[in-house]
């Protein structure tokens, strides 16, 4: 299995009231969407692994948004931020924070939602389609501009997920450094600190 990961270094703040960590599967790569995404003119789409991997940096720091009925996107209702993105197997997994103090009703509704009920949906810009005439569009290049938390049944990809994490985000400084050391020592993760405070890890199993 191949893993590609990127994360933003976030300074640790103990018991930060406005950071509620989450994790989820944003999309699957190299697989056709279950239904046509909005903007794809009725075509189902495949986001290639290479395109997803190349677009990971664009995903970091982007916001997550929500619609009141959890049925789509509202790019102006940003209730959190993505701080980490991994391509693990066929899943593009993300982690980040919700602004819990600013959006208590969002956190409350997510806490009360049934397990497996919520999913995610990406927002792309400048997506390149290999062949516009193909029945299923293959996206070979794209830029992530954000993501939405929504009901899984409203996502174009059936196999997405979203849940509030029990603990802290693993990329907060002390946690990440500890985890990094542990992972580096025990499972071969390699951390490359980049000049803009971004952490990139690569591992092949």
């Amino acid at each position: 299995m191949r893993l590609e990961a990127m994360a933003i270094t976030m300074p640790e703040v103990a018991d930060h009231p406005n950071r509620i960590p989450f994790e989820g599967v944003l999309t699957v790569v190299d697989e056709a969407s279950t239904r046509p995404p909005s903007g794809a003119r009725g075509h189902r789409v495949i986001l290639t692994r290479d395109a997803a991997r190349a677009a990971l940096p664009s995903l970091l720091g982007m916001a997550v948004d929500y619609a009141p009925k959890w049925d789509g996107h509202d790019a102006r209702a940003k209730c959190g931020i993505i701080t980490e993105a991994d391509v693990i197997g066929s899943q593009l997994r993300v982690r980040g924070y919700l602004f819990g103090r600013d959006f208590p009703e969002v956190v409350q509704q997510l806490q009360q939602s049934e397990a497996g009920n919520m999913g995610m949906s990406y927002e792309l810009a400048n997506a390149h389609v290999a062949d516009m005439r193909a029945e299923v569009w293959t996206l070979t290049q794209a830029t992530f501009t954000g993501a939405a938390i929504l009901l899984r049944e409203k996502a174009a990809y059936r196999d997405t997920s979203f849940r509030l994490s029990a603990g802290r985000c693993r990329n907060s400084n002390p946690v990440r450094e500890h985890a990094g050391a542990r992972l580096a020592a025990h499972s071969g993760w390699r951390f490359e600190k980049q000049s803009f405070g971004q952490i990139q890890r690569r591992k092949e199993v």
Partner: protein
Amino acid sequence: METENIFASLGDSIERLSSAASLLERTVAWLEQRETAAGGAVEKMTAAVEGQNELMERDRELRLKLEAAEQQIAELRAQSSRTVAARQTLPASTTQLLAKQGISMVDSIQAGALDSALTGLSLEQRIAVKAQLLRAGMLTQ
């Protein structure tokens, strides 16, 4: 005089064939260009299912496209029938040559029957007559 007419119409036919060939070349080039330009960009996409408004908008776009395509098909059909009607005419010189060989005006003639009917004509005359009949769409295999 007749031979001059025949050569003139033969030249005309060659000119038409030449322009048809260049048109075909241009069409092939266009098709090749279209093939390479099959990829495209999408400005915005979200992986959520389309809402009712978006579905209605797409439905409207598809209806417009369908109407445009139907209109284009109707125009092409009309153009095609006009072309067929226009093609069903032969120069007077060719008609006269055919008449001299005992062939009166027909809708179409088979190539084999034409060969045997034109044995009295020179090779150049036979080529010219066949070219005119082909252009008129009246010669069948």
